[in-house]
């Protein structure tokens, strides 16, 4: 009987459920949108006469942070729903958010450092915004390490749901720190930059024209598409583990 169930489970998993139509649409949109927004940043947006070509990295640097914001925000949502309902799909969503969000946050952090080298004449400085962004990355890297380190599944999911909710504080601090700590040299593009900001530029209509599609892509379509793929993968991984356990039990 168990053997028959296992065979059915394995057969079902081998023939992975086809991607939902919406996910396929989002995947195509993500690919086309990424290529399109990159083309806008590289070819349609004007060159900043003070900063030079490196300013174009801004069209990825800032949207990638907001992409991380969306992904980490969905980690909070997934964690809260898991704690409330104890359904593994919400844990999968939380995990997917942490993983995709960390990739986006690393893009944000590293493109910022690469921009800073020619503009600030240094790869890194312990500025409040940079420090908080680094702490945010480390916090979510720790989330993934903890996930690999706790064996008890139920305990792991509950603990990481709580961890994921509290980790979001680092995202909020990173987002708002340049508005509340005047010592930062990190520029603000929308609104007035801090007094000590270095490397500011105005969000003119040309900048916004190239930035808006990129923001929409990185804030919504891109993290959700990647998270959806990651969550599906995790679901299959879970089912594989179930199958392994049954085979071992047999």
């Amino acid at each position, binding site marked *: 009987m168990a*053997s028959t169930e*296992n*065979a059915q489970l*394995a*057969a079902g*998993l*081998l023939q992975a459920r086809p991607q939902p139509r*919406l996910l396929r649409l989002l995947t195509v949109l993500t690919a086309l949108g990424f290529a399109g927004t*990159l083309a806008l940043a590289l070819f349609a947006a*004007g*060159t*900043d*006469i*003070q*900063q*030079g*070509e*490196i300013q174009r*990295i801004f069209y*990825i*640097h800032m949207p990638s942070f907001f992409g991380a914001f*969306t992904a980490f925000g969905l980690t909070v949502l997934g964690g809260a729903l898991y704690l409330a309902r104890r359904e593994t799909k919400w844990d999968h969503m939380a995990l997917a958010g942490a*993983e995709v969000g960390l*990739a986006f946050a*690393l*893009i944000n952090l*590293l*493109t910022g450092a*690469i*921009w800073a*080298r*020619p503009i600030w004449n240094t790869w890194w400085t312990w500025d409040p915004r940079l420090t908080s962004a680094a702490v945010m990355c480390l916090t979510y890297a720790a989330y993934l390490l903890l996930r690999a380190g706790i064996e008890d599944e139920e305990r792991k999911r509950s603990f990481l749901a709580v961890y994921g909710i509290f980790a979001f504080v680092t995202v909020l601090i990173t987002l708002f720190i340049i508005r509340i700590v005047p010592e930062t040299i990190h520029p603000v593009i*929308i609104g007035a930059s801090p007094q000590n900001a270095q490397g500011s530029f*105005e*969000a*003119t*209509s*040309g*900048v*916004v*024209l190239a930035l*808006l599609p990129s*923001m*929409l892509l990185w*804030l*919504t*379509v891109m993290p*959700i598409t*990647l998270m*959806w*793929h*990651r969550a599906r*993968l995790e679901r*299959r*991984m879970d089912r*594989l583990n179930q*199958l*392994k356990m049954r*085979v071992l039990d*047999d």
Partner: protein
Amino acid sequence: MTLARLLLALAAAAFIAFTAAAQATPEDSLPYFQSPGFNVPRLQNWEEQSSGENAQFYLAAASATIRTALVSATEAPAAVEAALAAGGFPQPFDAPLYSGKVNLADGTWTNIVYAIDQERTASAMARRAGDRFVVISFVEEDPAARTVMLTLPRADEETASAAPEISAALAQFADAELAADAALETVPLPSGSWSAYRGADAQALGMVFGNDSYVALQTGTLGELAPLADAYNRTLLGFFITPDNSAFLALGLATVFLILGTLLLSFWWRARGIRQDFALLQALEREDG
């Protein structure tokens, strides 16, 4: 459906926020002359005569020209002569009336003043820019007056005004000296706060900027010096070269592709591992069965 709604809500919020931001920000009409080689402010109320890579502005009321040009030369004096020749002032020139070097934030500049002929005087600042020289020149063609523009290292950094440099310029070009107790008037101009001296045969304006002083001096029949000094110094202070940092952009883009590529590759790798494990488990089941 829930996901689709969330997506739409986020997209709508982002669209509204950034449309609002776009409307709240100024238009990008930078008052700058831009060329691949350099950028200088456009001078309002001056007639623009720029062509190609060279920026040129002319003020008919003072018969004055301010020209910024990139020229190929091996030395600063030759660069200045080449820039002036390209601007329509034929060589050869006599020995310069003044020549000196000054260190500014963007490098070492050579300041040279030539008497082109009895009526025309050229003041120029030149510095190396890659394999060429950038030359910012001021030429006045007023037969009744001589106007020169100087950039001098500050003689006394404890003195708040440019009085020592004005005195040095007067000694050099007007054969006069500034009395130690001379009262200098303060003149606010768009380029900064200037100290003004006005004598019978000469007038001067001086502005302290960092470790240097900018001095504008006029001898002969005195006219309006302030607009000339202000325009030339706005050009000097507003001049900059757009940096070539496209290699950093390439590095940034490579980083983005590397991180996203690693993420996607890890998805594929893990999916492949799952497929292989299932296949193995199925094979085991078959063997057991």
